[in-house]
């Protein structure tokens, strides 16, 4: 807990001095917001061992709930919990087939869920204005307005901290043990240890959905404009990649992954300026490089970055560590 926070602080200070305060704070805000959604995936993928292709849709539910409520003047004390609750409800709904399915079948059902949600956001134009999108009012309560990058960063970091502590507590307790038991062996977990598999998966998805909803609510405010295509399948895969790169087994994986996912487009933009020739300005280069990074990550480090730092140590501790 302490070590990653110190590292983050160091990166923050470095970023502030090199990139300028506003830019660095803006990036840190994004990293923290992505990391909150990433924590949800660490629970679902890393702890409970389920593949979900629909996390982006849950983030979308949170973002739309927050935006629609904030537009009608609902204060954040009410609207943010509502967004979290909608995300959790979406997670519960998406996990319904998990009662009887595991593995790939279940991944397919989350894919279907995500596509249905996306289509709904596009078609329900009276509420969401469809593909035209909605502009999001500033996060404000009473006289307080969160509109400078520094304030946004502080709010996101505070939210991340709370989410992190909650997850840590849950993982150390009964739910965490149940999730890991289901991940390792569903049948043994159910029959030998008396774990209710369906309820355990449901809990993982409710928590993951709630975190996605929270991330979505914050993201909507920081970006200031939301439309259905921001939360498409690509976004779900980006989040999946986030936990994979960071290491799905550890909560800190969400943070590392978020750092990589947020900084990757910036690095690619830098690289594009350096590369010579007409080709480097083509629209496809970014996609190619992004894909290449995923492929390289998967081939070189199938366990993710968080586990790489330990090396031999990690493999020794493998039996006990999580």
């Amino acid at each position: 807990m302490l070590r990653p926070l110190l590292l983050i602080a160091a990166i923050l200070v470095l970023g502030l001095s090199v990139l300028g305060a506003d830019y660095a704070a803006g990036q840190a805000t994004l990293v923290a917001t992505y990391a909150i959604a990433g924590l949800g995936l660490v629970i679902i993928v890393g702890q409970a061992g389920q593949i979900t292709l629909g996390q982006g849709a849950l983030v979308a539910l949170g973002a739309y709930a927050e935006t629609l409520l904030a537009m009608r003047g609902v204060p954040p004390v009410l609207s943010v919990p509502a967004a979290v609750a909608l995300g959790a409800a979406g997670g519960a709904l998406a996990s319904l087939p998990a009662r009887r399915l595991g593995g790939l079948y279940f991944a397919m059902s989350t894919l279907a869920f995500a596509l249905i949600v996306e289509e709904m956001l596009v078609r329900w134009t009276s509420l969401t204005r469809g593909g035209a999108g909605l502009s999001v009012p500033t996060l404000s309560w009473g006289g307080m307005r969160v509109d400078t990058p520094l304030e946004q960063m502080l709010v996101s970091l505070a939210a991340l901290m709370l989410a992190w502590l909650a997850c840590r507590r849950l993982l150390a307790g009964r739910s965490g043990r149940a999730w890991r038991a289901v991940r390792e062996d569903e049948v043994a977990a159910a029959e030998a240890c008396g774990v209710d598999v369906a309820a355990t998966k449901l809990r993982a998805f409710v928590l993951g959905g709630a975190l996605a909803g929270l991330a979505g609510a914050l993201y909507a405010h920081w970006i200031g404009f939301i439309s259905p295509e921001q939360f498409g399948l690509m976004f779900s895969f980006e989040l999946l990649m986030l936990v994979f790169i960071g290491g799905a087994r550890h909560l800190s994986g969400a943070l590392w992954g978020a750092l990589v996912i947020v900084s990757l487009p910036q690095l690619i933009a830098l690289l594009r300026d350096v590369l010579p020739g007409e080709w480097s300005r083509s629209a496809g280069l970014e996609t190619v490089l992004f894909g290449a990074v995923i492929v390289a990550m998967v081939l070189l480090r199938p366990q993710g970055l968080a586990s790489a730092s330990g090396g031999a140590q990690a493999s020794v501790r493998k039996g006990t560590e999580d």
Partner: protein
Amino acid sequence: MLSLIQVLTSGIAIGCVYGLVALSFVLIYKATETVSFMQGELLMVGAFAAVALNTGAGWPLWIAAPVAVAGLALLGAVLERFALRRAIGQPHLVAVLLTFGLGMMLRGGVTSVPAASHDIYRLPFADSVLQIGALALSLSHVLVIVATVVLAGVLAVFFRYTRAGLALRACSENARVAALMGVPVASMHTLAWALGAALAAVAGLLLAPITFIHLNMGLIALKAFPAAVLGGLTSLPGALVGGVFLGVAESLAGLVLPEGVKDVVPYVLLMLALLLFPDGMAAGWRRRR
């Protein structure tokens, strides 16, 4: 009545394309336990390869199309050798991300060709109308259906009577026993990917007269997942039937239900099927009998 037949024909035709993509997905999944999220990109690249050879290099279509399909088979084999092989035996997530990343690279590669990203192309076949009495059918739809039936027949013969086909099936059923019987399992994995990529390319060519050729035509592969799951995810004929079923259901939904609902129908069917028959529709029917 006539319009119903026309709607059904177009539904079956698009369903055939769903079915072929689902077939390629199931083929790869059965043989290598690898989930492929790049079938849509392979389909798109295959169609573009045919366009490039046809309009770019000026080859006649009857040469360009088979060469494009063969090229995709080669691409599938090469990708398997260098990257996809590493995902075997790993958790599904590894294959999901690996194929997705490779798919992004393929799509990005095509996007960086300016001619590909600006225009919509068509292949010069089957744009006339078939007139049977009062019934007017689009020739392209009929052609797609006929081609799919022929292809299914060829595949059935391949899997039943040829040595490679039997070996591939043995490998899908039980790789360890197949290896003990002298089947070269690693080559079979390569063959499965080559066949899967080639099938996706064929689907792309057949889709060309229906939706034309553009960068996002690969999105149709998303509909192949419900088709594959409806077919049970491990049955090759099931995948094809699932695809045709989806195509027909979708076109009927377009006729009856309000605008926009049509696109959600496959996914709603998928979720319902998974909730009601967790082992696939075919298994559900079998058990009931």
